[in-house]
């Protein structure tokens, strides 16, 4: 079946994914279809209980879906793998290990044959990347919430995964800290061309970070209802992007969806194959993946 929501060359393909928990009649989500291209940053937004975390866990291989497939780089995801790094909601650092050892634990898992010096050098590189070199030998309990989450991010990046999965990584942080870490994440992702899938509740965060924003309808039988293409320039910054009128068009579209339309589209009323949406632009809705649109525009 050719699915228009999934570009043919997509690196990650999520096809008709669904999850029904035992004992419940209705699926939490069903017919979830989307694709992620290599190097893309994709955010998923939706109300609590629509199964975002379950989708992320299915992508990670930590949970099995009851229907559908996840295919990464041509191979079906059947279990957890070092090719997919996960940043957990609650940072999930091991409190008995220092920052260095927490990351070294991950590095040694990926490269068991490395010498201690190699591991150390690699760990130090990634700790420096998130700006925590001064705290490298501290235990997580001695770090602030934001620092802990940065260690979690460094740990996920350190294994150089093909895909990074972030489960609402900044949810527990205060607004200021969140801003700094968002900037850091944005910089690192641009530098490393990392493919990222991230859950968030923060509309501004999604617009800043994501190339594509997946909008989920409410559960039960939630679906990815729309794929919003971020039309802000790639060079956008947190401090400058709200001066772009396009920012508000996108933001209003997202907020309108969450406030008004998400609930109406529950119980499977959302399309099983989401449209690409360009808020504020003339080709407001299209069935075609964005690179085809660009071709049309240039033609």
């Amino acid at each position: 079946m050719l699915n228009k929501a999934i570009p043919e060359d997509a690196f990650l393909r999520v096809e008709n994914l669904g999850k029904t928990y035992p004992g419940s009649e209705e699926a939490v989500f069903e017919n979830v279809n989307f694709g992620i291209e290599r190097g893309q940053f994709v955010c998923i937004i939706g109300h609590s209980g629509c199964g975002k975390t379950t989708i992320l866990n299915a992508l990670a291989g930590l949970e099995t879906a009851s229907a559908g497939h996840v295919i990464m780089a041509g191979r079906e995801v059947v279990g957890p793998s070092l090719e997919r790094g996960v940043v957990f909601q609650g940072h999930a650092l091991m409190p008995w290990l220092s920052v260095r050892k927490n990351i070294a634990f991950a590095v040694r898992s990926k490269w068991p044959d490395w010498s201690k010096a190699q591991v150390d050098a690699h760990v130090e590189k990634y700790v420096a990347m998130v700006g925590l070199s001064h705290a490298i030998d501290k235990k997580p309990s001695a770090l602030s919430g934001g620092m802990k989450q940065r260690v979690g991010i460094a740990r996920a990046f350190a294994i150089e995964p093909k895909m990074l999965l972030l489960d609402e990584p900044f949810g527990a942080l205060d607004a200021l800290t969140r801003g700094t870490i968002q900037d850091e994440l944005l910089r690192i992702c641009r530098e490393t061309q990392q493919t990222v899938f991230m859950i968030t509740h923060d509309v501004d965060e999604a617009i800043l970070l994501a190339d594509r924003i997946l909008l989920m309808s409410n559960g039960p039988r939630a679906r990815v209802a729309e794929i919003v293409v971020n039309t802000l320039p790639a060079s956008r910054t947190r401090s400058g992007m709200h001066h772009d009128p396009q920012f508000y068009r996108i933001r209003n579209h997202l907020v309108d969806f969450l406030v008004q339309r998400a609930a109406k589209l529950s119980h499977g009323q959302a399309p099983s194959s989401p449209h690409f949406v360009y808020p504020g632009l003339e080709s407001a809705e299209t069935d075609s993946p964005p690179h085809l649109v660009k071709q049309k525009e240039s033609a």
Partner: protein
Amino acid sequence: MKNLSLRAKAGILSVLLFALILAVWQFATLQKSSVTTAQYTPEQIEYMKLMGKDPGKQSEKSGFPTPVQMGSAAFKHLSDPFFDNGPNDKGIGLQLAYSLGRVGIGYLLAALVAIPFGFLIGMSPLIYKALDPFIQVLKPISPLAWMPIALYTIKDSTISGIFVIFICSVWPMLINTAFGVASVRRDWLNVARTLEVPPLRRAFEVILPAAAPTILTGMRISMGIAWLVIVAAEMLVGGTGIGYFVWNEWNNLSLPNVIFAILVIGLTGMALDAIFGRLQKAVTYVE
């Protein structure tokens, strides 16, 4: 007084309390009860003397030792703790060593059984549920109730003592290990899963350190129980050990020795607990 630390104040208070206890003890044991012979008729006194209960003499000597007598008994024991003059006459240090040896062997065997088994039980909810009724039934049995069965099957009193220590130490360690392993945070296990950590490495590098504080708590409780039980077990089994010493000195009606042994038991228990307290502190982590 105001700028003393809480610790120093508590220490001073402890010393004062100790002095008070000694003073009360001294006072209580020295006071001669003034039993007058006036209330008895001469015939009664004569009769009592015949029965070995001389009312005049009896009041002079209290059976309970004074602190000074205690001190001299303690000095006698401590000046030569390791003498060995045959089965019923060994130094307190030697007796203590016998008891510690038994506790050590029984406890170590219990740890060798309980910790690996606790790991398995904790990892598998099925085994946890299946074994739970057995553990719940076996756990509340007084270790001394096993004594007859142990003596009957093992036929050796020393090994029976060790068995009793084993059986009483095993449950807290088993239950705590299983509980600790079963309640390792899901996040840490998920981290290990996404990193494709092999099972053995996961057990030693994730589950063991995560469950270590709970396991150590179980070990500490076990050690406390084992030290309580050894005294009673040795009283039953006889031969050697601090428990047997207490019973033997009771038969000799030597209360200073009994009291001294009680103090030694208390101090040893405190030392054992302190060691485990240290170990516990070493593996405890702050989340």
